[in-house]
């Protein structure tokens, strides 16, 4: 058997303004079934994707944030967040629907270097 492919999903875009993070999440869910080594990184405006308390009903747009909570059931448990992006935006771990591990930029750089594939969403 070959080694599992190390794939990182890097979410860099804010939700709703563009669809990248939502469609990125759809890709993560599918890949979860393939028993590869998957991680999710929230960086830049991507940290907003997991913000608590979204209510998209007045806009009639589908709220995708609850889906992040089910990732664990798909064996996707490597969630990371960039400390600097989070702090610049006035967010703390209490603000999120999931509990990503907080990494500094050196740790993220190291993690990225270990990946076979980085998907930007």
């Amino acid at each position, binding site marked *: 058997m070959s080694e599992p492919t190390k794939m990182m999903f890097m979410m*860099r*875009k*804010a*939700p*709703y*303004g*563009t669809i990248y993070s939502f469609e990125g999440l759809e890709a993560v869910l599918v890949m979860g079934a393939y028993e590869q080594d998957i991680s999710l990184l929230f960086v*830049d*405006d991507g940290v*907003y994707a997991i*913000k*608590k*308390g*979204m*209510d*998209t009903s*007045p*806009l009639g*747009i589908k*709220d995708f*944030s609850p889906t992040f909570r089910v990732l664990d059931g798909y064996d996707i448990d490597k969630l990371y967040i960039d400390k600097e992006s989070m*702090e*610049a*935006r*006035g967010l703390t771990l209490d603000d999120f629907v999931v509990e990503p591990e907080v990494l500094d930029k050196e740790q993220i750089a190291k993690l990225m270097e270990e990946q076979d594939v980085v998907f930007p969403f």
Partner: protein
Amino acid sequence: MLHLVNKSPYSSSSLDSCLKFATKGAPIILFEDAIYGAMAGTSLESKMIEVMKDHPVYAIKEDLMARGVNNIIPGVREIDYTGFVELVEQHRPCTWS
């Protein structure tokens, strides 16, 4: 003139471009991803407080709600789409995307 900004101020220079050309007193509406600029406790808060000395700043309620942002900088005025329309009644708009 009424300035409409829809991009995140963290990833785009649109708000800065808008501010460069907006005349004193001209209102600014933050909507879509631009509402993150209206959030309190961020690295942009002090800048936004400066901006509000020269411009009334509005943020669209529906976009704040969609993004789970409920702590806005004091002084930013929350409006719904009806309020958006009312501002357009009063001023000709200019969009910065």
